[in-house]
């Protein structure tokens, strides 16, 4: 897996330095993305649902209520749900980015301006990513709550947030890659949500335990293989406060791979 990761990062780097990279272009596209996101009512609805989902699961999930647990650590409550919610939220955030360019025909306009495809892809990715960042900031109310009620260890919470950002970033990149292939937002969401969920499930403890307990060599090998592509082991470590280089590397390579695929698909689609 790490070989694929290194390969993906190298490919994206090659695409980035394949010509002069104009930060000004990425910035212009990024600003447009963010602006267009916040002019649409859909954005506020999505954000609202995201915040309701995070808070409801954290405080109300039967048997896992944060307040009744009398714990101030967020790992088993708040962060426990993050990858699952993000698997839905990130594709919904990113679905419009490229699908809209094709639907409106603006891809023809932007492609005939002096912008490199990779600049377009990076600008789009960062645009969705910053919205995700803002959404996560709003969930800090939970952090404030536990800080008032108890005395949490802030280190793991910060690391947990970092993990959420990386998981969200990876999911956004997946959705953007899917949206490069299809013109339809519905298809983009219908394909990328299952992919993101799959990236969660294959590394989820019950699934991993099933493979590990099977005692069959082939199955436990499959389990390890699945764990290495899943976001779960990495995210769980982050939410415990452990930041490991190999997991940072994992997220960066997933994002790099997806952005590289997007770049390639967009370029080949035009011919």
């Amino acid at each position, binding site marked *: 897996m790490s070989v694929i990761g290194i390969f993906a990062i190298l490919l994206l780097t090659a695409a980035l330095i394949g010509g002069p990279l104009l930060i*000004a272009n990425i910035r212009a596209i990024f*600003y*447009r993305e963010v602006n267009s996101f916040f002019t*649409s009512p859909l954005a506020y609805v999505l954000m609202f649902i995201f915040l309701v989902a995070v808070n409801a699961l954290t405080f109300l999930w039967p048997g896992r209520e944060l307040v009744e647990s009398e714990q101030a650590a967020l790992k088993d409550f708040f962060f426990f749900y993050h990858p699952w919610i993000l698997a839905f939220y990130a594709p919904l955030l990113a679905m419009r980015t490229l699908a809209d360019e094709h639907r*409106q025909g603006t891809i023809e*306009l932007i492609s005939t*301006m*002096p912008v490199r495809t990779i600049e377009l892809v990076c600008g789009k990715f960062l645009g969705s990513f910053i919205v995700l960042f803002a959404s996560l900031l709003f969930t800090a109310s939970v952090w404030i709550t536990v800080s008032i009620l108890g005395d949490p260890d802030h280190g793991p919470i910060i690391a947990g947030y970092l993990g959420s950002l990386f998981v969200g970033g990876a999911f956004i990149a997946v959705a953007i890659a899917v949206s490069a292939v299809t013109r339809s937002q519905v298809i983009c969401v219908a394909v990328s949500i299952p992919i993101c969920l799959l990236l969660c499930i294959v590394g989820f403890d019950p699934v991993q335990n099933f493979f590990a307990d099977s005692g069959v060599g082939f199955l436990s090998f499959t389990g390890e293989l699945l764990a290495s592509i899943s976001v779960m082991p990495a995210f769980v470590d982050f939410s415990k406060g452990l930041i490991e280089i190999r997991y940072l590397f994992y997220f960066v390579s997933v994002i790099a791979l997806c952005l590289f695929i997007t770049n390639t698909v967009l370029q080949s689609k035009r*011919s």
Partner: protein
Amino acid sequence: MIEVKNLTKQFGSKTAVDDLSFSVEQGEVLGFLGPNGAGKSTTMRVITGFIPASSGEVEICGIPIARQPENAKRKIGYLPESAPLYEDMTVAGFLRFCASIRGFSGAARNEAVDRVIETCFLQTVVHQSIDTLSKGYRHRTCLAQSLLHDPEVLVLDEPTDGLDPNQKHEVRKLIRELGKKKTIIFSTHILEEVEASCTRAMIIDQGRIVAEGTPESLRNEGSGSITELFRKLTTSDVAA
């Protein structure tokens, strides 16, 4: 200037543009005529670098678009056929975005945006959201975008499509005016437009040039009317 050499574009087994060669010099306005599906838009898309050619070469002011796309694209202003726009932006916001991509910032950006708003008569809709604009305004907004960087080469795909007679007149006048200093190629279905604003015209059919010359020479060739010549030389898609 625009130099097109032996340009061929195939989509699968269908040949949209077939070994097309021509050039347009500075100060020339070339009218690009042809029935629907003749390959006009495809040719323009290759010239502007939106799609690559299957074979042949396109040079914009001596810069090959296939090998140095960014440099060549800086020289071109392009109005695509359907005048695509970002629906969720205002006219001013859209033009500012395009100006940023064209390398403008700060006061120079505002100046460029103000200039094209004036040139394309957009003053009354500057702060209006694009999805509420009428077709004429949408077209002019997209045209404004193509003029932001005062390009040497203008490629306009049906610039008067969907405009009312007054707007058509204004756009033709604008093209004539701009054509004195720039290299312009524009496509149209309206044959009178050719006489109104072109210095040279070309009729293409099934991806090939079937007639070329000044509006006068084409008129003479068609015994007094370009329409006659057009009907004689091009294949009708309703013919059995």
